[in-house]
């Protein structure tokens, strides 16, 4: 997730203050809105995405990337493993970049690989991506746009 909770809070604060506040004539409603705007501003710098989600995403990527490397052993130009990184966010970013390098290789020099090995690597990469996305998807419910669209 490359959009931070602080960025979301800022969008909400800005729209509440600019679009909603000027249209509210009720004093109590106005006071509640201003409180919400204030709280969003104060908590924004304190928020981070779930560490568990990042762990799950790393768990989806790392073993499959290692397996892909074994499947491609000896193939020319196959991507090198991402360098170690102590920071969890940095590690995930590096593994995502490694995944992208594998995808580029698979659709470039990797085309010369025999079909069975190529298919194995493609399956591993697809499963890695599915697992990474699933960790995010599990934590965020689907949109209900019907309540946000009228007229």
């Amino acid at each position, binding site marked *: 997730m490359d*959009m931070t909770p602080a960025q979301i809070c800022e*969008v909400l604060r800005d*729209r509440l203050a600019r679009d909603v506040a000027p249209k509210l004539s009720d004093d109590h409603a106005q006071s509640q809105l201003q409180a919400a705007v204030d709280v969003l501003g104060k908590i924004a710098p304190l928020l981070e995405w779930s560490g568990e989600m990042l762990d799950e995403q790393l768990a989806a990527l790392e073993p499959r990337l290692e397996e892909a490397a074994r499947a491609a052993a000896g193939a020319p130009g196959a991507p090198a493993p991402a360098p170690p990184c102590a920071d969890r966010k940095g590690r995930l970013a590096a593994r995502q970049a490694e995944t*992208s390098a594998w995808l*580029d290789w698979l659709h470039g020099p990797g085309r010369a690989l025999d079909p069975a090995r190529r298919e194995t690597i493609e399956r591993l990469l*697809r499963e890695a991506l599915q697992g990474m996305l699933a960790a995010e998807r599990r934590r965020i419910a689907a949109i209900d746009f019907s309540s946000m669209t*009228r007229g």
Partner: protein
Amino acid sequence: MTPADPAWRGRALQPRLAEFIGERLGEPVSVLDLHRFTAGLSWATISFTLRREGAADRPLILRIGDPNGLLAPYSARPEHLALTSLAGLPDLPAATSLWWSDALDVLGAPFIVTTRLEGRTPMPIWPGAAPGAAEAEDDGPRILDDFAAALAAIHACDWRAAPAAALDPGATAERCVRDEIARWVARLPGAEGRPEAPAMRYAAAWLHDHAPAATRVALLHGDYRVGNYMVKDGRISGILDWELTHLGDPHEDLAWAGLRTLGGTATTLGGRLDRAGFLERYAARTGLAIDPDRLRYFEVLGQFKAACLLLMARERVRRGAVHDARLAVMGLQPAAAQMGLMSMIKAIRWT
């Protein structure tokens, strides 16, 4: 701190729009009763009344492409070219393009003014949703006929002899599908024609590898689906939202109309219209032999574009200065759309 809101979002809209139209008509006019609709997450749609001395009031629509909007930077030109090319077709109720401008010094955003169509806009009914209070005529028997007939009319347009030729003067059957993929990839964060998001990178490579030549190059609506037509007296009274119009394979519009991401199911378009009946009616009108494999390819392309929209919403939030909080809601959703994309490719690739 975000910059000040642009002219179109404030009180300057009314006088500036009146001045713009007045200059085109060569006489002073008044703009009244501005009302913004909440439908649509890309262009802002605003109804207004145009008043001229000695003439009846005229209800019109102003569509504005917010420079910070979902698909920005916008141009009003494609919608104008499509509407002008399709004007007057009996099976296609669509607005008439009156004036447009991509200059930012008028309203602070590209915009187009069209005639106003009458009717309600039935929205998709999502699987599991409780039945709404929609009037029976929203799904009446003539709607499906009209929906197929209007798309057939759009695709029958002789675009090479119409203003729409300017959309892509060099369009060919061999190239147009790849061009559409490239247009969407270019909208995403990334470099060298490759999306930054790994799942989108994978999908883009798959789409390029399997891109077919078009059965023929047609003028496409680009966003043809439940939610983008109006209904009045049991008939479709208007086809809306032409911002994504382009040249391509007719299967692309057919596939988009049924996307699950847009409320489609195995048997319906948008939870409202019979999917098989739509394809049958369209084929009967056009003579096109609908190719199921091609349709599945374009469903993947459609899902890719839907995922692009969500990732673009996320990118807008990252950059700041967002004028619609609903983009933040969209920005939380790309994972589900990308998982759907992966599953669709898997279903084709490994079965």
